[in-house]
């Protein structure tokens, strides 16, 4: 009997499937469980003119700094302990992101749900009266066909956030694309995968299928292989964001990143040269050296 197919890939193989101009959704949340190994590979690549859709953290910071982003769809960009992402701030203040779509967080969620359900839009109240609708005049309102005693309510027709590709990072996956999160929050990674034509999952560890629910409640199996095109094992691949319980955020490294991003061109160049020019193995080695020197 044949089993489902093996979808294991390398980081470079994933990035090779990406094309200029694509719309890429990045899972996780702010500085939490981001597929950073894949983001770093895009940072190093020749890709350009990307549309990024993200609950933004350093993923947005890195890729805007590298000039990869033609259009950014976000509701916030933050590093939590460093509230404002310096690379994102710089890009916005210098006007280097050609197109910007700032949504309310709930609208962002609803847009992903619409895309995951193959709907053109879903209605909600968020956005009404705010400048989200002023700065995005292409987002329309609709009148409810029903009157529940409050008249025919006006609602925002939140457009589907359809993605070409989704990139997410999970704690464990099998070779077929079933995957679990072991931390407190699933974020929206299943929605990202379902909103996309193709989804790539990086993970801390590839285990056999039975191992996914061996000592973990089955409810933690967030991703099913139907939603997934490729699996990449990238230990410490969410660094420097959280990947609870495998590791927490590397606050010291994040401070160094933020200082370089918010500093002079030379500061950033030095950070880039030290951490971001080589492949993922070189990055992890440079991080290990950094941690040793800080200890």
């Amino acid at each position, binding site marked *: 009997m044949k089993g489902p197919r093996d979808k294991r890939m390398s980081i470079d193989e994933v990035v090779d499937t990406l094309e200029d101009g694509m719309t890429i959704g990045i899972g996780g949340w702010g500085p939490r469980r981001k597929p950073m190994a894949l983001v770093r590979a895009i940072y190093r690549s020749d890709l350009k003119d990307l549309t990024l859709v993200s609950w933004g953290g350093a993923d947005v910071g890195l890729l805007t700094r590298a000039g990869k982003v033609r259009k950014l769809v976000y509701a*916030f960009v933050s590093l939590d302990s460093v509230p404002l992402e310096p690379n994102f701030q710089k890009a916005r203040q210098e006007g280097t992101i050609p197109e910007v779509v700032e949504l309310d967080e709930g609208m962002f969620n609803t847009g992903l749900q619409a895309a995951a359900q193959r709907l053109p839009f879903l209605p909600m109240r968020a956005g009404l009266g705010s400048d989200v609708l002023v700065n995005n005049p292409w987002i329309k309102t609709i009148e409810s066909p029903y009157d529940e005693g409050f008249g025919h309510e006006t609602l925002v027709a939140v457009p589907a956030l359809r993605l070409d590709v989704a990139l997410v990072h999970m704690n464990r996956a099998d070779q077929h694309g079933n995957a679990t999160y072991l931390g407190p*929050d699933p974020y929206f990674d299943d929605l990202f995968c379902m909103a996309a034509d193709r989804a790539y999952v990086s993970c801390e560890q590839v285990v056999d299928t039975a191992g996914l629910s061996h000592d973990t409640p089955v409810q933690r199996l967030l991703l099913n292989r139907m939603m997934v095109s490729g699996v990449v094992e990238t230990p410490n691949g969410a660094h420097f964001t959280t990947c609870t319980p495998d590791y927490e955020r590397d606050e010291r490294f994040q401070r160094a990143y933020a200082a370089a991003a918010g500093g002079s061109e030379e500061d950033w160049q030095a950070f880039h040269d030290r951490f971001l020019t080589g492949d993922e193995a070189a990055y992890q080695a440079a991080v290990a050296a950094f941690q040793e020197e800080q200890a």
Partner: protein
Amino acid sequence: MSETTDITTADVCAAAIADAFKDDGEIFASPMGMLPMLGVRLAKLTSNPDLVISDGEALFLAGVPPLFAKADKVEGWIPFRKVFDVVAYGKRHVMMGATQIDRHGNQNISAIGDFAQPKRQLLGSRGAPGNTVNNRTSYWVPRHSPRVFVEAVDIVSGVGPSRAAAAGAARFNDIHRVVSNLGVLDVNGPERTLRLLSVHPGVTVDQVREASGCEIHVDGADSDVPVTRVPTTEELLVIREVLDPKGLRFKEVPRPEAPR
């Protein structure tokens, strides 16, 4: 030691924030920032034990731990996606920050200047547009100044009552309180504008006006504006001994050099 001279502005703010949540009943209290977290937990330990609180990440807390302490007992799961469900459900009162707030109760946390190329990019709108047309929303301003209280915000993230009404979204718009380091306001001035409800002890109405870049309505004469109540002995004990023994609140509202 005399209690009245010992009471700091931070303590007064904590009690004022607690009062903003005291009549909410059994709803999810979502504080953003240190003093809001302190005030909400103070309310839960005193005036409104039914409040539902979280660790700010994914857990509903059954106990009331000190600021930034780990959860001792958990009563539920509230990952980000479920927060949006509660926003739409409506049983929530969020107290957000405000980089700018205007006379009409609109709030900005998105950016300063022109949206296309801002002078200063801030967080982004986060959940402010959705919060303000779905559930009760209050604001916390640790440094009341003309740069925060403005005639019109640069970008409307949180929606005030007039704009909500104009957009047909008045039904669940409920801007409840604005608590600052100088006083307590609401948006029930003429045409739903900012109104001063009380000034903190030692603060005058004129000081609030000078620290505001927009008109602040006062009902009657300045002398009619009450003084914000000081915390009770029980509340002071809870603040100092239980919730914030390390004095983290003074990072947001500094203690005066010398007692007033």
